[in-house]
């Protein structure tokens, strides 16, 4: 075990997997000489060379499409799109090709590809650079969507992504890159997809989050315990597709209350999916409607005060929980 920042844990995963499998190579904007916009790939060019760590033009569609093509021909590429905001320029490749080739070809062509991107607001980058659209990708059959909240999970899940035969959308919250945590150094350390993690046990309410929102949920749980004598159970989903709803349902059957926290907008977002699933599978156990704590329904403002008001906060989570009692 070593204490690593999340960006270092991600880099460890890439390094170990590239050493293990010569068919893995990396492509992306500024991932080589620059070391990656969030420094995840720093030093990998020096270790693996230009053939396997490829700086690309700013051309998201061809980067992802080339990743798909190389994956079809026996490689396991990782494409870094810098941020989720830029992934829209590659949306057709992801949605129409990566996600569907296996089905359309009747199982003949699979696309083992990892597409990494950063997401989240809170850095005063304005409306075009602050999206949290993990749920968008979780909408499509044929993709897997991973969004870790902790360094160890980041490593174990990213390594697991390179053992998958399908396209994995791997989304990292910008606020988490500097987060420290204990990370196993066992090269076979993998975290299976579709396994949520109970990161705090409690009896009174279930708070569900992923990626950045897990940390709001944990801070809210502390406030609730210290000031309100409410013991919240906090669940980190870790992967949105496949989704471990069973762990959530089991928890709700114990706590009888559920709050979903998400950085995305509430309307049409993934929190609504969780709420619907909880209703379908634990309706009789609920003492209150499932609550959603999400971003306000506005494009993200630049101004610091306005941005803080637009994003879900731990106070919003506390308020949502207290409203249930």
């Amino acid at each position: 075990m070593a204490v690593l920042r999340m960006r270092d844990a991600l880099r460890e995963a890439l390094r170990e997997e590239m050493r293990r499998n010569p068919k893995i190579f990396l492509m992306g904007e500024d991932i080589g000489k620059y070391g990656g916009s969030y420094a995840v790939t720093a030093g990998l060019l020096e270790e693996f060379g230009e053939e396997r760590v490829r700086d690309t033009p700013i051309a998201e569609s061809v980067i992802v499409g080339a990743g798909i093509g190389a994956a079809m021909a026996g490689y396991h590429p990782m494409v870094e799109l810098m941020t989720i905001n830029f992934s829209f320029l590659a949306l057709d490749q992801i949605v129409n090709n990566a996600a569907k080739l296996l089905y359309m070809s009747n199982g003949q062509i699979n696309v083992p590809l990892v597409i990494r991107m950063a997401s989240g607001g809170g850095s005063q980058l304005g409306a075009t650079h602050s999206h949290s659209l993990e749920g968008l990708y979780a909408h499509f059959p044929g993709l897997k969507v991973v969004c870790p909240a902790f360094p160890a999970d980041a490593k174990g899940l990213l390594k697991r992504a390179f053992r998958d035969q399908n396209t994995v959308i791997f989304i990292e919250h910008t606020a988490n890159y500097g987060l420290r945590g204990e990370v196993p150094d066992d090269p076979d350390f993998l975290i299976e997809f579709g396994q949520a993690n109970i990161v705090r046990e409690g009896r009174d309410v279930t708070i569900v989050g992923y990626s950045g929102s897990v940390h709001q949920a944990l801070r809210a749980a502390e406030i609730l315990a210290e000031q309100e004598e409410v013991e919240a159970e906090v669940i980190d989903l870790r992967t949105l597709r496949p989704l471990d709803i069973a762990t959530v349902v089991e928890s709700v059957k114990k706590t009888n209350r559920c709050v979903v926290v998400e950085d995305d907008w509430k309307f049409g977002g993934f929190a609504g999916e969780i709420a619907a699933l909880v209703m379908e599978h634990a309706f009789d156990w609920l003492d209150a409607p499932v609550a959603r704590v999400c971003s306000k329904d506005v494009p993200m403002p630049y101004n610091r005060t306005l941005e803080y008001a637009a994003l879900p906060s731990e106070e919003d989570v506390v308020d949502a929980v207290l409203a249930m009692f």
Partner: protein
Amino acid sequence: MTTRTTTPEVLERIGRERLLDFLYQMVFLRRFEERAGELYTKGKIRGFLHLYTGQEACAVGSISVLRPEDRVVSHYRDHGHAIVKGVDPKTVMAELFGKATGCAGGRGGSMHLFDVQKNFLGGYAIVAGHMPIAVGLALAAKMSGEDWIAMCIFGDGSIAEGEFHESLNLAALWKVPVLWFCENNLYGMGVHLKESLVTDITKLAAAYEIPAVKVDGMDVVAVHEATREAVEYVRREKRPYFIEAETYRYRGHSMADPELYRVKEEVEQARKRDCIERLRRQLEEVGWLDEAGFHAINERAEAEVEACVQFAEESPEPGIETLYDHVLKGDPHGRPTNA
């Protein structure tokens, strides 16, 4: 356009047997597509159906140059490309019928044919959406040190798409072995190329420092000769090459096209350049074919097409129980949750 005169020497080099095979393949594709059009009007084939009639010399002249291990990706007017690449036409017709024996198990349809065994890696129905994939295939060929190349077939309608430019640039920048093959049939659906492109197609390729030639896409010998030179270059230099084949589609864009954008005379003019008639004449002139010979070719093609139709008719539908198969590899059901 590079003027290519089909001299007896050129015919001699390709050889009688091969040229007769080209003729057979073109006649076969013509009959196949005409029959598919009929079956569409009878409701046996549904969805969108884009017929290839008029353009047969492009597929036959070019893909015939490739080796089995070379990878081909194509657009949605893809029946001809799949068949010439070696996909069993029975399984192509069955795919149009949506049957379980189709080359995509009835999951793809006319626009999404696949046969990995034949290295036909797909028809792609989003315009220019397969061009980035071709770059990745060619990159894999280069990185692996293997000798195969990628061929990407697209229409003139792709040229204004961003992915065309992204793909040509990256292929040239990274020097990967891809043959760009543009079937310029003058129309992106109903919009004439003159109304959608400000420059000449091959000039764009040249701007990305990719060697480019124009060829008469209604002349199978000319297409074959141009592609032979192109493929030699791509395989030897491990770099992209660009062919623009000037061709024409006789039928509408799809079966739903009332063709309000062109006059009948234009289609009649194009038919005077017909690829089948042209090769037939060339072969007759050198004494390698007579009327009885052509008749026999046509009869054989018709019988083969009927065998395809019969196969498709008699094939089973995919079972409802297979609905969730192949959503995810290694996951038999592919469900999103464990609920």
